[in-house]
């Protein structure tokens, strides 16, 4: 079948009951009423709960003067009420009240591992697209220069700046500092970082706001997001312990590296043996050995020989991530691996059903869409429980 044309799906909109306002209040004794607009007089925040309440811009979060306003809120000069400026969930840290949007553009934080694409080359720095509102910058002084990490940069390096990174090149880096205006400064001064090759790039939504980390998604939002089709927009890469790991793939694909940039840019590539493998155990590599490794591959734009089997599995991993994102499931090592296993399982199921039904059917088998993607999501959710 070459083409599938479906009628539009009318999503089942569960009508929200008016009582849902009540369900937002944490205690039934309505001591902690979050819907400030309805009953502004009564609205008084308890100091004991982490709220799962949802507010919209302009909504009064509280008018209790004991709270301090944080991100995502504002106060009018003459009143004590704190008003939300973004739609999202209310968070309280001691006496600080902030609203975290469910989805937003990536805001860089120090230490984030990001995948970025060079968009502009300047005389001493690169401008890098990291899916943030502002372009990040990567100074020439923040990269490993060939011929040893400890070498000073020279004017010759400035002249041949394009031989390190050029427009369009992808790189993995770490956020070194964040400027006043929110733009990030990156560095690649580690053997883990540098130019990317031997793989495919994928852009999904990244960490929204600052706090949509795994801890907050564990709550109501997280559970809801695992329902396929619903809660679109909560999926995406979240900050987690491991952003980079190696998958040993099935079907003879060998080892494949996955890099989940916190910013939602993802790189899936053939596992780089040698240099990168050694870098995970950096302690037993001598400085001179490292020099060699830096010079041997870090600025290469030539791909290694990659077998078709590996390419297939890389494509499968990429699709699994797409399925997760479209299903509104957060993307981290755990879910990606589960989705990958599920996709293999689904393949077996489908294979049994059709049983060499037609030779040409086999061709598009690797395409995960519609029913297959739903099945994968189901399996992922099942395992989550």
């Amino acid at each position, binding site marked *: 079948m070459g083409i599938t044309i479906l009628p539009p799906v009318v999503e089942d909109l569960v009508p929200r009951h008016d009582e849902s306002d009540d369900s937002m209040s944490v205690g039934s004794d309505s001591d902690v009423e979050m819907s400030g607009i309805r009953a502004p007089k009564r609205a008084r925040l308890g100091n004991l709960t982490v709220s799962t309440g949802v507010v919209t811009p302009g909504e009064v979060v509280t008018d209790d003067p004991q709270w301090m306003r944080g991100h995502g809120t504002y106060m009018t000069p003459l009143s004590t009420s704190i008003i939300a400026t973004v739609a999202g969930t209310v968070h309280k840290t001691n006496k600080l009240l902030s609203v975290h949007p469910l989805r937003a553009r990536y805001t860089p934080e120090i230490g984030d591992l990001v995948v970025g694409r060079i968009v*502009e*080359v300047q005389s001493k720095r690169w401008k890098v697209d990291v899916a943030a509102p502002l372009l990040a910058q990567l100074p020439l002084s923040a990269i490993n220069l060939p011929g040893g990490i400890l070498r000073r940069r020279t004017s010759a390096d400035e002249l041949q700046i394009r031989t390190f990174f*050029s*427009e369009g090149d992808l790189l993995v880096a770490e956020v070194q500092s964040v400027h006043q205006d929110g733009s990030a400064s990156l560095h690649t001064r580690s053997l883990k970082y540098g130019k990317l090759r031997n793989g495919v790039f994928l852009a999904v939504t990244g960490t929204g706001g600052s706090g949509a980390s795994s801890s907050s998604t564990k709550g109501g939002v997280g559970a809801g997001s695992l329902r396929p089709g619903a809660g679109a927009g909560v999926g995406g890469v979240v900050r987690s312990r491991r952003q980079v790991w190696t998958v040993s793939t099935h079907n003879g694909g060998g080892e494949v590296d996955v890099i989940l940039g916190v910013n939602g840019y993802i790189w899936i590539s053939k596992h780089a043996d040698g240099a990168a493998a050694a870098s995970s155990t950096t302690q037993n590599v001598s400085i001179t050995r490292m020099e060699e490794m830096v010079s041997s591959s870090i600025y290469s734009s030539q791909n290694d020989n990659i077998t078709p089997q590996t390419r297939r599995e890389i494509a499968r991993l990429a699709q699994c991530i797409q399925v997760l994102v479209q299903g509104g499931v957060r993307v981290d090592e755990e879910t990606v691996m589960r989705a990958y296993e599920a996709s293999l399982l689904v393949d077996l199921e489908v294979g049994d059903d059709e049983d060499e039904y037609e030779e040409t059917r086999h061709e598009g088998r690797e395409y995960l869409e519609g029913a297959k993607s739903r099945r994968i999501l189901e399996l992922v959710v099942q395992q989550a429980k």
Partner: protein
Amino acid sequence: MMADRRRINGPPGGTRPAVFASNSQSGTGATTRAQRQRQPSELRKIFLKTGLIPTASGSSYLEFEPSASLAAARANPKSLIPPSSALKLACTVHGPKPLPRSAAFSPNLVLTTHVKYAPFAARRRKGHIRDSSERDLGVHLETALRGAIIAERWPKSGLDITITILEAEDDRWWGDAPDSHDASWGMMNVLAGCITAASAAIADAHIDCLDLVAGGVAALVSDESAGSSAAPKLMLDTDPAEHRSILSACVVGYMPARDEITELWLKGDSSKASLEDGDKRTGHEALIDGAVDAARGAHTVLAEAVRESLLSAVGQL
């Protein structure tokens, strides 16, 4: 749809000269249409000369030989309806020149093409702003040339190619009903001329290219000039004014040295082509092959013109 943002135009829609009934109905001689007198595979002669515009880095001028009937009709005009027109165009190349500061870095030569009809080029007057057919031609031309230019030899630079069409090929004979075939067949001939001329001008500007790319046109024609049979016949380098009915036509930009097509534009129904017995090709394949043959013909002229200008330059030294 497309408004000129800089100048105030007159009311849209043009006026046409009055053609008096007596004029076109009385004398039968006045309405005789031009007939193709060439063989189906015979091309019109091309005049091509490079380096005529001294201020440009490269330039060329191209002219198709007018049909025999046109020459006769011009010498002895009988009707207000011109029997046919021939193609005349000038091409200038500016560059390679640095890209403007605001432009993003480009590892390749950035090509821009402008094709503009002179207001008086066609029977219906063209405005001063480029209309959609002129933009369309520009895109086609760009596709044709980009395949031939070795763009990475000239990083961070731009090349402007401007073509002014002084006299355009007609889409049909103006004595015919406007619905006889209203598709823009003449545009295809214009495109073929543009490709050949631009290629010569690029060579004149000393830009590296893989080969001289030449344009050629072939068409499937069914009318009296193709013989009595109604089955459409393949003809090369068709002048639309000479044919009552063109079923489909094809223009290619072709590089003989590599046997590659850089630009292909085929339209119309080519399924009913009558080929010689034993010819297994389908209609569109035959059409493309025909256009390639026409382009090969144009290429000989093109190569000769470029060599000629080179030799004359050497002679002057």
